[in-house]
């Protein structure tokens, strides 16, 4: 289990001295971002409160924690629309109808992406420990229960997160997102995990917006990891292809 090996020394130390919430959160990030890169076909099913479904599909490329390119395949009116996220909140959107690439500012970070329950920020980078402090607030036989509060100076739309972390795999099983008033806003669940090249990788994730009664199910198909994706893929030039 490659992701876990990287944090093994820390976990061993934790067994001796007791794991802190922040230690566990670093472990979560390490496991979630263990592959050097990944390429997948992403299927997003949007379900509204009445049970109506809409489906979006996109090619997704990720390198490290903070380089990501998403190119829409369906629906037809969004075909070719691409989203590129780079380090330091640099983001671009390409609109094929206008043949133009648009730099987008971080004010859209917390807007919903393409009708899903995910924000641009959710898609931009993976990593909780950079933005949150964690404390252990509970534990059962299979999970640590963490409370994540935004670090001072970070701009987050949530007052805190509550995360259930699998003790064996260090994958988050469920994350509850609470709004600024402390009300439950969104619930993310990992609903399926595959082992690919020794990595435990979620292939099915759901995000439910409790307030809007809207849900997005993301399924990752044909996933390939550690394929040596070139940095050239994560450029404005490549978005237009």
């Amino acid at each position, binding site marked *: 289990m490659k992701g876990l090996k990287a944090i093994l020394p820390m976990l061993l130390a934790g067994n001796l001295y007791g794991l802190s919430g922040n230690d566990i959160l670093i472990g979560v990030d390490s496991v979630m971002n263990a592959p050097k890169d990944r390429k997948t076909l992403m299927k997003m099913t949007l379900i509204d409160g009445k049970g109506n479904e809409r489906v979006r599909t996109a090619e997704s490329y990720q390198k490290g924690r903070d380089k990501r390119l998403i190119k829409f395949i369906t629906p*037809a009116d969004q075909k070719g629309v691409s989203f590129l996220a780079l380090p*330091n909140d640099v983001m671009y959107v390409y609109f094929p109808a206008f*043949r133009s690439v648009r730099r987008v500012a*971080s*004010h859209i970070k917390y807007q919903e992406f393409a009708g899903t329950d995910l924000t641009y920020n959710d898609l931009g980078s993976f990593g909780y420990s950079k933005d949150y402090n964690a404390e252990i607030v509970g534990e059962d036989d299979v999970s640590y229960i963490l409370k994540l509060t935004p670090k001072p100076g970070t*701009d987050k739309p949530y007052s805190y997160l509550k995360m259930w972390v699998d003790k064996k795999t260090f994958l988050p099983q469920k994350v509850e997102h609470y709004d600024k008033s402390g009300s439950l806003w969104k619930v993310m669940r990992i609903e399926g995990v595959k082992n690919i090249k020794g990595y435990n990788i979620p292939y099915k994730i759901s995000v439910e917006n409790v307030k809007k009664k809207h849900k997005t199910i993301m399924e990752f198909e044909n996933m390939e990891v550690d394929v040596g994706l070139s940095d050239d893929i994560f450029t404005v030039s490549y978005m237009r292809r």
Partner: protein
Amino acid sequence: MILLLVSDINGDVLGYYRYCFGCDTARWTWNEERLELRFSGSSDKVSYGADFRFRVFGIPNINGLSDIQRRDKGGISPIYVQPREAFITLYDIPFGGLEVSVGKKVISWGKADGINPTSQISVYDYEDFFDIGAKLGTNGINIRYSLGNFWVEGVFSTFSPDAIPPDPYSSVFFSSFPDTINIVALNDTINIPKNGLRGPSEFAIRFAGTVKGIDLSLIYFRGYDGIPYPKRIDITPYNLIEKQVKINLIMEYPKYHMLGFNFASTPFNLGFWGEFALFIPDSFETQKRLLLPDPFGFDSVTLTFQPNKPFLRFVLGWDYTFPKGIYANLQYIRGFINERSADSLRDYFILRMEKTFFDGNLKVMPANLLLEVGNWGNIVWIPAFEYYPVDNLTASFGVLLIWGKGDSPLARMEKIDEAFFRIKYSF
């Protein structure tokens, strides 16, 4: 390794209708059904694209019995086929980082929304006043070499004119003769650049990249204005008592250099962009000839000429998403699309605000506003909304309202108040 091309056919079916309720005689001004087909395919090393529009205008073109007897029904439903793009692009051939496109392609270089003074390669399609910024493909070769976050791009193309809107919208581009002149015949001729290697050629080069989080580009363009200007005007008095004249108008496309600078950045969570285009026109003189002695003072006739003075057009823009998802986009513009000389430049604000409802199924755009700076009574307001009941289907409704005073082009368009409805299905 060259993989097989994966080919796709996509497109739209569109119904588009406009009714001018402000015109002297209220009437339908647009009645179109359109099929747009887009062909595309790509592999690691090559891609292609083509875009064709098949357009049917529902206003019959019938002048006699023979027009309604035609087997192609062309008089009843005139059909127009319009090739917009057809190009092939090679990647990393013969070496990595190189991208070469050949054919008819839309090339858009600006950073601003809709008004892009530095984007001069692809000609503009001004046919639809609601679709400002639409471009037509240009024949040429486009070479781009990328190195990380920097690239240099060159384009060599042949001249193509802008498409201007039909009457009465064309009045935004062309001044009319004074009402005191009664024109009994107007003959206009447009001379396009002479065919050959030099005559119709245009070229541009762009250096672009990101420095300290700011996207920058420098552009040089050498080519023609897409709008023709009067080169010679012959005014022939026809009936001295009725003050009637005949006019023969010869127009040409002025040539110019353009130096451009673009930037885009995101300070303080805001989107912030700018385009600056310095136009340096070649010498272009208009001859005005009165063929008989001038009894009416026609020498006082003024037209919009292309002067030889350099001039600067620019756009500065900001956008922001407020809490509750209210999106605002503000641009300050020096020089609207029709203003192409130092003497004609005016300043404008364009404000766009929008908000979506019902899980994004309804987008409301209450403030689509153009305001002329200093002449605040000159306004274009297009409140509209878009409805997306199912995937791939968009229905748009709205109205165009224009207020104009004085010598503003908007004054010439003030009566063009319209309602519009557009429905589009993408496949």
